[in-house]
């Protein structure tokens, strides 16, 4: 265990380009590596990795392990776990970070069991304890009602999956140099017990509420079905999803699938704009995971202001149109 050194992140790419979570993992990985005085490496697995390797270096990695094989073209548990097990046994990282993505959710637990170590999933904060030098892993539990701080003392690597959009990526730095190391995982096709068949994209209008990083939520004060068009438009501008508290759903102004709250969906966006929402506790438990709540409400005493970071007291019908124009202008510029 004393041998284990360095922070390693498992990158994800689409068509040879690292996706957002990869940059976020590099950002937090760099921080952890620097506070330990250890190197940061990235791993990329694909049939062809291409330019992605150079890209992760300019975004923070000291070196990149490239594992290429036709068996890694699409994510399959067995092939990815086998390849990463072999790499980890050779490189012996101290810390291993994965994104809490569809891939990471599947990969990280199985890999942790394979390596005989522990993993904390869906972390929103990671830091090194100055005394113990252990990685302290913070994750929401009980539907976001509480936070747990977890460490992995006895086994290595210390593994965590990181919730998307919780970590800052680093700016691109083209002067960064790093080594690209090709790793032959010697994958054996006969040991891969599952086969990828196809991926089917379903047409969903906009972004899925539970996964959205921006949620625009309308409440009873919206007053009727027609005015939700304005909220929908704002959601579209911000690349977010439209939601509602219970009254608009109960009244049939919007489909009940949009309901956020105790008996509806639990959301955890970075930005939650609550428009004409009073803030009943059953609603707040559905959006308590939101990192920044912005409230627009006529009633200055509304409960929603108690949990909001920024608030506007006023009539949403008069506030939202100029707000949307300004947002559009800022996003363009």
């Amino acid at each position, binding site marked *: 265990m004393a041998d284990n050194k360095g922070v390693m992140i498992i990158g994800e790419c689409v068509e040879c380009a690292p996706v957002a979570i990869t940059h976020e993992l590099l950002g937090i990985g760099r921080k952890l590596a620097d506070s330990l005085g250890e190197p940061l490496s990235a791993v990329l697995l694909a049939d062809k990795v291409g330019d992605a390797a150079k890209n992760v270096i300019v975004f923070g990695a000291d070196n990149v392990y490239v594992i290429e094989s036709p068996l890694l073209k699409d994510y399959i*548990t067995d092939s990815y776990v086998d390849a990463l097990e072999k790499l980890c046994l050779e490189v012996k990282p101290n810390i291993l970070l994965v994104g809490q993505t569809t891939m990471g*959710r599947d990969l990280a637990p199985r890999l942790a069991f394979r390596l005989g170590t522990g993993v904390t999933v869906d972390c929103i904060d990671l830091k090194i304890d100055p005394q113990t030098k252990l990685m302290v892993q913070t*994750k929401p539990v*009980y539907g976001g009602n509480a936070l747990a701080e977890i460490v992995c003392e006895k086994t290595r690597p210390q593994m965590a999956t990181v919730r998307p959009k919780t970590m800052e990526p680093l700016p691109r730095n083209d002067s960064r140099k790093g080594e690209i190391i090709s790793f032959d995982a010697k994958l054996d096709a006969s040991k891969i017990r599952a086969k990828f068949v196809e991926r089917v994209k379903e047409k969903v209008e906009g972004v899925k509420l539970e996964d959205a990083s921006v949620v625009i939520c309308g409440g009873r004060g919206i007053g009727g079905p027609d005015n939700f068009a304005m909220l929908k438009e704002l959601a579209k501008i911000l690349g977010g999803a439209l939601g509602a508290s219970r009254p608009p759903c109960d009244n049939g102004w919007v489909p009940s699938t949009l309901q956020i709250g*105790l008996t509806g969906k639990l959301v955890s966006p970075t930005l939650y704009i609550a428009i004409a929402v009073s803030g009943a506790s059953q609603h707040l*438990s559905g959006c308590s995971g939101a990192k920044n709540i912005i409230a627009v409400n006529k009633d200055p005493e509304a409960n929603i202001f108690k949990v909001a970071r920024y608030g506007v007291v006023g009539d949403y019908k008069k506030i939202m149109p100029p*707000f949307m124009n300004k947002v559009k202008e800022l996003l363009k510029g």
Partner: protein
Amino acid sequence: MHSIVCVKEIPDPETPASAFAIDPVAKRAIPAKDKPPVISPYDEQAVEAALRQKDAKGSKVTVISMGAPTAEKILKHSLAMGADEAFLLNDPAFEDSDSFSTAYVLALAIKKIGQFDFIFCGRQAGDFDMGQVGSGIAELLGIPSVTLAKKIESQDGKARVERAFPDGYEVVEVSTPALITVSNELGEPRYAPLKGIMAAAKKKVPVWNAKEINAEASKIGSAGRHTSMLKLFIPVRESKCEVIAGENEEDTANKLALKLREVKLI
């Protein structure tokens, strides 16, 4: 054919934040008075997935849970829904388990039960949302795992599984025996019919302890943990709301937009 389902008893996830309390020393939630513990919702869907196999293929369904004696209730619930038999894994030595010691105990119990085609688990428990026990059991038993399933079709030693993705689904074919974790996209679990409830009430749920599944003391409960919890706490919510106000509505709207840009929210 035989399916085994693993279920967990958790504090009711519908407990409102105002009634939610934790014991910071024991590092767990204190169940709200009027909210008895429930079967983890994803696990109930795992029972549903197994029952759909039973409907289609007439396969036997066995349900197991590691937990307190009160977890018999969720096993009876699974029996009432249509499962054939259930076992409770209870031993004071199992207490304070993490995902690793839990998977170890469940894997041993499955070995004791014997031959199976499928193991179904919920995609994650509705309390700690770790989503590791399923993959862990598969790893310990040396069988393939497919996670986040929304549809499972089985035939001739193979299963075709649709995995729920944020923007659709992915189709994977896997050889059986296999472990499948079930996502909420599978659909609503069935109601337990009155006949089922009455039949379940009469069924015995055998209880197995550590010795009966040949568990090694160093691998169960807190001794078998790979991770330790330093702290469990309720985060202090920012109660300071900064009110944005301008000379008129348009000015207020502009100020709000600029503020959100300044703090990088847009």
